[in-house]
């Protein structure tokens, strides 16, 4: 037995000695979702990383990254670093969270940014590593690093508002009044790309009706939370908004046709849509009404003078627990917060890293978008808490997907709330 232990120890030591050397040689496998910011940014950042460390980077970028890496991962071939956010249809990141297959990145926060003397946690802007988006198990440990943030809110045609002389609604009551005015001119108040876009919208609304504490409870499925007046108010607003929504929206609210819904704003057929700043790039080729100009605002307040929130959406960067090259992976994670990487991300693609002070340097449309938090809106961050997998329950479908039925009138507001309560109860029991 003792002999065995000695051998094991010797073996472990030898491996320990050789591991760093080996890590230097093995290429770092990086997989990143290709979004409106393009794939070029990743090639350059990868090259920058190689120049600094000598570690070769094997890069995979794809618009449907899940399709490319899922089978690979099941075959035991894990990327070392992955940028893929939660809230996507294929829900790969959620699956790994539920299955406890992410590497703890908390120690990266107290590492130095690669090539700089600053700690990662001092580089990342305030609040970004404090929500369930980065700390999914609510235990103070960070498993996902924030990337490419974008304020979400309501997008509109500023040109149309100027032309009609309409005021931007500051409260939901103003909103309804505007909706009636617009309806008289044949313009719908509201449209949405797909029901999935209600996530950012609904999270911000939960903050507005009840503040951070309420949000925390709601997203952790607290008992009776959906019967509170705050929750009911949020449901009322969404329910009412459904009646102000352009009628053709549910028809196109799928992955193939959602651009038609976004086009409604450009064609002055609807006033507002919930979206993120990437929409500008996404619709760059689309034809638009004369005098069209992008406008962007936070959600209207629930009461006169109440808080207005804009959801902060960001991509998530993570390291699979099964990754072979974790040391290099963590170095890479620290590198994406360097000034060098951030400027590549921004200059080549327009992606904004959540780095202290970066938002102040922006110009043009971006300045308007990112200054939303300076002009009174509060930032909403977070999402529904991770649970053990529950058979047949997809909470995003229950909460957001049903909006399609509210608009088409196939379900009532009360049926919707009832379903949310049922699923919420199931999820609470499965909470991590």
């Amino acid at each position: 037995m003792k002999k065995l232990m000695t051998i094991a120890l010797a073996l472990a030591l030898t491996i320990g000695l050789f591991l760093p050397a080996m890590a230097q040689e093995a290429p770092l496998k990086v997989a990143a979702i290709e979004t409106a910011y393009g794939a070029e940014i990743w090639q350059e950042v990868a090259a920058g990383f190689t120049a600094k460390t000598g570690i070769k980077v094997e890069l995979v970028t794809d618009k449907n990254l899940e399709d490319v890496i899922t089978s690979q991962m099941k075959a035991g071939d894990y990327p070392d670093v992955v940028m893929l956010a939660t809230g996507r249809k294929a829900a790969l990141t959620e699956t790994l969270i539920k299955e406890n297959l992410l590497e703890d990145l908390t120690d990266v926060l107290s590492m130095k940014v690669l090539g700089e003397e600053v700690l990662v946690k001092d580089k990342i802007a305030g609040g970004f590593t404090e929500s369930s988006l980065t700390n999914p198990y609510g235990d103070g440990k960070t498993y996902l690093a924030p990337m490419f943030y974008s304020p979400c809110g309501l997008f509109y045609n500023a040109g149309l508002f100027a032309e009609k002389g309409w005021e931007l609604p500051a409260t939901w009551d103003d909103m309804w009044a505007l909706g009636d005015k617009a309806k008289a001119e044949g313009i719908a108040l509201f449209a949405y790309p797909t029901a999935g876009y209600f996530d950012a919208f609904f999270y911000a609304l939960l903050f507005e009706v009840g503040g951070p504490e309420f949000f925390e409870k709601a997203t952790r499925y607290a008992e009776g939370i959906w019967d509170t007046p705050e929750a009911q108010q949020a449901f009322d607003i969404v329910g009412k908004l459904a009646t102000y929504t352009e009628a053709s929206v549910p028809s196109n609210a799928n992955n193939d046709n959602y651009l038609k819904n976004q086009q409604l704003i450009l064609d002055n057929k609807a006033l507002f849509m919930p979206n993120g700043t990437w929409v500008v790039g996404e619709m760059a080729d689309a034809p638009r009404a004369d005098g069209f100009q992008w406008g962007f605002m936070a959600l209207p307040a629930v009461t006169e003078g109440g808080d207005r929130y804009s959801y902060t959406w960001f991509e998530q960067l993570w390291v699979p627990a099964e990754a072979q090259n974790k040391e290099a992976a963590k170095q890479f994670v620290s590198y994406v917060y360097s000034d060098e990487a951030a400027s590549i991300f921004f200059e080549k693609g327009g992606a904004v890293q959540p780095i202290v002070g970066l938002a102040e340097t922006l110009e043009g449309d971006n300045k308007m978008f990112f200054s939303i938090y300076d002009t009174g809106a509060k930032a909403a961050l977070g999402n529904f808490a991770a649970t053990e997998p529950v058979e047949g329950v997809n909470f995003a479908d229950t909460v957001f997907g049903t909006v399609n039925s509210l608009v088409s009138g196939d379900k009532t507001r009360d049926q919707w709330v009832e379903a949310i309560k049922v699923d919420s109860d199931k999820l609470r029991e499965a909470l991590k």
Partner: protein
Amino acid sequence: MDRHKGRGWFIFWCSAPAFLLFIIFMVIPTFNIFRMSLYKWGGFSARRTFIGLGNFRTLFEDMKFLQAFQNTVLLIVVVSVITITLALGYAAILSRIKFKGQNFFRIVFYIPNILSIVIISAVFSAVYDSHNGLLNGILALFKGEGAQPVYWLGNQNIIIYSLAGAMIWQAIGYYMVMYMASMAAIPESLYESAGLEGAGKLTQFFQITLPLIWNNLRTTLTFFIISSINMSFMFVKVMTDGGPDGSTEVFLSYMYKQAYTNSTYGYGMAIGVVIFIFSFALSGIVNLVTRRETLEV
């Protein structure tokens, strides 16, 4: 003499390789589906828990599964009844009546069957579009401009039939060719004598054609059940992704969502088992119900 001595080996070498391949790549995986349906497993990690029939118990209380079940059955019934009727009609016209351009029509009708599903979905999203779609454009001719458009892919009472329309469009040619093949085997003399007795084309169809291809028709019904389950998934996947709000979810699309995006792989496999048993049973029932005294020529 030689022939009989080697008979056993001949049969073995002819049938065994195919059967072996079939066992490895179809029977064993199917067995695995049945096995995994008894587990709670997310699909990635090593954490697997045996839960017996737990997944099946959850399944029959899952309203979304029942909706998928209902949609699948509806699609099977609607698509097969309409497709078979139309395919039979077109097959009868093309094989019983002589006229110019016959060949052209036969060729064209089969084309939808060779198209990839992505093309079909693109075509139908342009046909069903609520503002610029072909269908609403034609309707507007009758209802006048400015009439409320029909939301083919938005109205939850209509959308399942919109899907059925696309599926029928795709399937008619295939079944038409099948029926034409068996109609071609009917001897001309039968029609001639019927014609002499004064039977019209329609009577001939019901008295001669239909009874004589009845067996073939029954076979295609089984194919319909199998292929509708499969095709409905393909169509749903590219056209609606089960939406809006789960109103077009079908068996396989729901299975996929549960197995892959909801991290409940075992549950998804339980759905797979139900699909297998359901299609098997339904085919058996249909086979029994349609059994007739067959007419052999």
